[in-house]
C-alpha cells in the first residue's frame, strides 16, 4: 500500500494537480457572493484607506486578491 500511495503522489505531482481541493469548484456559491468580496466597492475602499493613511504613520499590506468563484 505505501508503494501505491507514493506512486499516486508522484503521478499527481508530475501532472501538476498536487493537492486535491477540499472545497470543490461547484461548492463556491458562498465564496462567490459579492458580500464576501475582499473589496466590493474599490472606489470607496481606496478613499477610506487614503483618509486613514494620510493621518497615520503606518502604511502597507492593505491589498488583497483571492476567493471568489475560482472559475476558469
Amino acid at each position, binding site marked *: 500500500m505505501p508503494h501505491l500511495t507514493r506512486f499516486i503522489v508522484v503521478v499527481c505531482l508530475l501532472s501538476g494537480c*498536487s*493537492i*486535491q*481541493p*477540499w*472545497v*470543490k*469548484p461547484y*461548492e*463556491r*456559491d*458562498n*465564496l*462567490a*457572493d459579492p*458580500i*464576501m*468580496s*475582499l*473589496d466590493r*466597492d*474599490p*472606489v*470607496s*475602499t*481606496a*478613499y*477610506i*484607506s*487614503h*483618509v*486613514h*493613511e*494620510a*493621518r*497615520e*504613520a*503606518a*502604511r*502597507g*499590506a*492593505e*491589498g*488583497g*486578491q*483571492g*476567493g*471568489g*468563484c*475560482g*472559475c*476558469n
Partner: protein
Amino acid sequence: MAAAVAIKISRFAAAALAVALLSMQCASAAVLPEDRADALYHSYSGGGVKISGPSILVQKQLGKHASVNANYYVDSVSSASIDVVTTASAYTEQRVQKSAGVEWLEDDATMTLSYTKSDENDYQANTAHGSFTQEFFGNMTTLTMAYEKGWDVVGKRNDPTYAKDNDRQNFSLGVSQVTTKNLLLNLNWEIIANQGFLNNPYRSARYLDSTAEKGYSYEPEIYPNTHTSNAVALGAHYYLPYRAALHGEYRLYTDTWGIHASHYEIGYTHPWRKQWIFDIKYRFYQQTHADFYSDLFPYESSQNYLARDKELATFSSQDIGFKVTYEFASSPARFIKKSTINFAYDYIHYSYNDFRDLTQNTAAGTEGLYGFSANVLQIFFSVWY
C-alpha cells in the same frame, strides 16, 4: 511662512489611493474584473480641515485577456488645522490625481501595470505599480507579488526654485486561501523604503525658550533621509448561513524610525430583501512615536533629527462607520446591467498622548493633549455594463 502643515495629505497616501483602487480588484484571479463605472463624492471634515471632491473610476474589458481602468480624483482642501492656526494662516488648495492601468489574464495568472500622477501647487507624486497573481490548488490559493516605484518632488509655495526628491520602492507578497466553503483567509506583507527629503518643508519643531514670549520657539524639522517600514496584515471573511458576512483584519507595523503600530478592524455585511445591503464596521488604530519626535524639545538643536509632526506622535484612533447600498430594480438603459446608489458615513476620533494643543495658551509643555473628531461622508453611484 505659508503653512501647508495641516493636512499633509500624505504624499504616499496619494499613491496608495491609486494603488488601492487599481490593485484591490475582483475576487478571483482567473476572471477579469467586472466592467463598471463609479462616481463618488467624498467629504472629510475634522480638526479644522475640510476636504472634498470627486473620484471617478472606470473599468472595461478589452478582448479576451485584458481589462483597462482609469481614475480621476480631486481633493479640494480648505485648512485651518491645529498646525496651521498655530504657525500660520488658513489656506485652500487643490490636489488632482490621475491614474490608468491594465490587467492582463492568461489561464490562472494575472498581471497588472499602472501609473499614477498626483499634482498640487507644492507637491508632485509619480507612481508606477506592477503585480503578478497566480492561482493554485484548484483555484483555492491565490498568491500575489507586487512591486511599486515612486518618484515625488517636494516643492514649496512662493518658492519656485525649491524642489527636493522623495523616492520610494515597495515590495509586497500576499496569499489568500479558501479555507472552507464559508471562510476565506488572507495574509499580506509589505516592505516600503523611502529615500530623500522625507519631511514637510513648512513644518516646525518647538523647543523650550525662556526668552520667548510664549516660553517656546520654533526650529525647522530635520528628518533622516531614509525610512524603511514593514507591515503584516491578516484578514478573514466568513459567510453566515442566513446570508450575511463577517470581516476581520489585523495589521502590525514597524519601521526604522522606531514607530510601532497596529490596528484591528471588524465589519459586518447584511443584505436585506433583494435590493439593500448594509455594512457596519469598527476600526481601532494605535501607534508609538518616532524616535526623533517630541512635542517640546529641551533646547534648540537638541538632536540630530527633530520632528513635531503629529503623524509621528503616540496616538490612537477609532473609526465607526456604516454604509448603505441600494440596487435599482430596473435599468435606465439597455447596456446597463445593474446600477446602485451608495451612502457611507464614518466617524473617526483621534486621541494624542504626546502632542499638545497649542491653541491653549498655558505654560509651555502644560497645554492639554490634542484630540479631534472627523466626519467622513461618501455618496456614490455605480453602474455595471
